[in-house]
């Protein structure tokens, strides 16, 4: 892995105002609250966390699909929030997204050639024949057959549709791909096919992935580094090996222990957290996890912990990290 940074995210923040009306100023949902990380070229960084933790919003902010409330996204040295619209449009082909749901993310009235080739229409220098050739090549790359060229999405299975979504993203020759839960709508046997496809394409095309997922087994399989999010904040960020061998944040530990595995009869020290994830409308004071943390102490409810470096490459936001 080269050590060139492709993406640098600093203090990224997104507040949504909900319930605003003429008479009501509404409430603020702190969906993403001061997230910082960087992504190296050729790396897979996974964002894991439970629903509502802000991982998908982070993915959309990175691509400037929604504007941030605060913070910067620096892509290959350029602050994308400051780019004028025409430059941003050029950059868009460099940064692509694969969505979770292969049913709702494909236009049912478009054919395969239109879905995959749509982005290429922004490149007027390409002739129709060249476009067709590129679409067919990309279809082959992702494992779709040439006879699928004129078909509509409803004629495909879930796994094939997800391949269509991958082809649509990759035909623009992106350098950065945000994959937002690309596997969660798929059956187990199909997941394996798509995981292998993503891994092969990363190797062949030198892609960098921001992989958003809640499935820890898959995350462990495909990531280089992993960031754990909870209620809009990063709790821990480390290499896969560090994180699985020795999680330092109690939330990471609980999350990992809660994931069911297929090893029968192995005694596990499962940590069962009490309660549900609190609402991001009104996150707890101090450390956001302290209301459910089995190791919470008095200061946890008062002071928000800093996201600090505990070991080389291992960042944790906790007043009392594990194994300290």
């Amino acid at each position, binding site marked *: 892995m080269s050590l060139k940074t492709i993406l640098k995210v600093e203090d990224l923040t997104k507040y949504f105002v909900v319930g605003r009306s003429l008479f009501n100023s509404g409430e603020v949902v702190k969906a993403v609250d001061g997230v910082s990380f960087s992504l190296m070229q050729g790396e897979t960084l996974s964002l894991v966390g*439970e*629903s509502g933790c802000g991982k998908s919003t982070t993915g959309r902010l990175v691509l400037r699909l929604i504007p941030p409330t605060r913070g910067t996204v620096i892509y290959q040295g350029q602050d994308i929030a400051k780019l004028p619209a025409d430059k941003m449009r050029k950059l868009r082909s460099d940064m692509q997204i694969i969505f979770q749901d292969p049913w709702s993310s494909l236009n049912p009235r478009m054919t395969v050639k239109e879905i995959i080739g749509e982005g290429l229409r922004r490149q007027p220098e390409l002739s129709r024949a060249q476009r067709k050739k590129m679409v067919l090549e990309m279809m082959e790359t992702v494992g779709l057959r040439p006879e699928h060229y004129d078909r509509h999405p409803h004629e495909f*299975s*879930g*796994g*094939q549709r997800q391949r269509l979504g991958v082809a649509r993203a990759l035909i623009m020759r992106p350098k950065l791909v945000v994959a937002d839960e690309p596997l969660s709508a798929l*059956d*187990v*046997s*199909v*997941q*394996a*096919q798509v*995981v*292998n496809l993503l*891994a092969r394409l990363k190797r062949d095309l030198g892609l960098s992935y921001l992989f958003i997922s*809640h499935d*820890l*087994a*898959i995350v*462990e*399989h495909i990531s280089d580094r992993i960031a754990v999010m909870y209620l809009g904040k990063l709790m821990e960020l480390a290499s896969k090996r560090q994180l*699985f061998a020795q999680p330092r944040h109690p939330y990471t530990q*609980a*999350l990992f*222990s*809660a*994931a*069911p*595995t*297929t*090893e*029968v*009869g192995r005694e596990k020290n*499962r940590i*069962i*957290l*009490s309660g*549900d*994830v609190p609402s991001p409308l009104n996150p707890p004071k101090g450390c956001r996890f302290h209301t459910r943390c089995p190791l919470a102490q008095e200061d946890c409810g008062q002071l928000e912990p800093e996201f600090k470096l505990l070991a080389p490459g291992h960042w944790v936001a906790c007043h009392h990290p594990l194994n300290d």
Partner: protein
Amino acid sequence: MESLLSIENLEVSFHTSQGVAQAVCGVSYDIGRGEVLGVVGESGSGKSVTALSVLRLVPYPGRISAGRINYEGRDLLKVPEKQMRKVRGDRISMIFQEPMISLNPAFTIENQLTEALHNHRKMSQKEARERAIEMLALVDIPDPAKRIKDYPHHLSGGMRQRVMIAEALLLDPDVLLADEPTTALDVTVQAQVLDLMHRLNERIGTAIMLITHNLGVVAESARRVVVMYCGRVVEQGPVKEIFEEARHPYTQGLLKSIPKPGGRGKLFEMEGIVPSLFELPQGCPFNPRCPQRRPECAQSAPPWREVQPGHHALCWLYA
């Protein structure tokens, strides 16, 4: 273990404009008193339709065309609808994947929980409310006397699923059919709900049929597993044997496709895709994808054989 509910040669077909889809094809398995049975399979394998058939709730245009559901010396497929209503929710109850759809948004939790107690047990409102509060406490709803006045939208996903479990267990049923009960939940909440179901199974002795596509959930919760593919049970046995020494090539492939802890590199991929129920292959429905295919596999249906005591597979390899 004493058999409590047994499904025998169940056949369910869906008659659609595209033709007839055989969603369940000769399925037989039973569940013992107080047992936790895992039923796994991918989408379209017929696992949910089988459970719905037990309660005779198969949605239109589905039809149960053959088979028996033996429960307490009767065939549930033959009892009159009026008696069936006494079985549903009372002796056999069911919970579904999406608790927001299963709870009525226009009624309070109290309304929904006490309805069954009025109808099935003729309880007064006061008695029913007390029983409902007791049940909510049992499923770890904090401050149940207050929460019972809430509407479903006041509750989080995990709480709603717990209310569903409370509702399903109100009448102390013999069997709980749980169809993907934790699929819509986050991992930490899933762990809570599975832990709760376990404790209730041990305490009340309700048998649980846990239907899921998540092999990890089954490995950790069930004692016995039924594996389904294309409307058929392809393997059945003790959970440890299935996960460590699966015999059917489909089960083997499924287990190999899951990423392992500490694993890297290429994942095992099963060849091909699940066939459409409208055009199932001849012989064994898995044969076009099977790495151990033999000539007879494409010709006639495979036999159901015991490969170890209490462990069966539907495969020509063990003929």
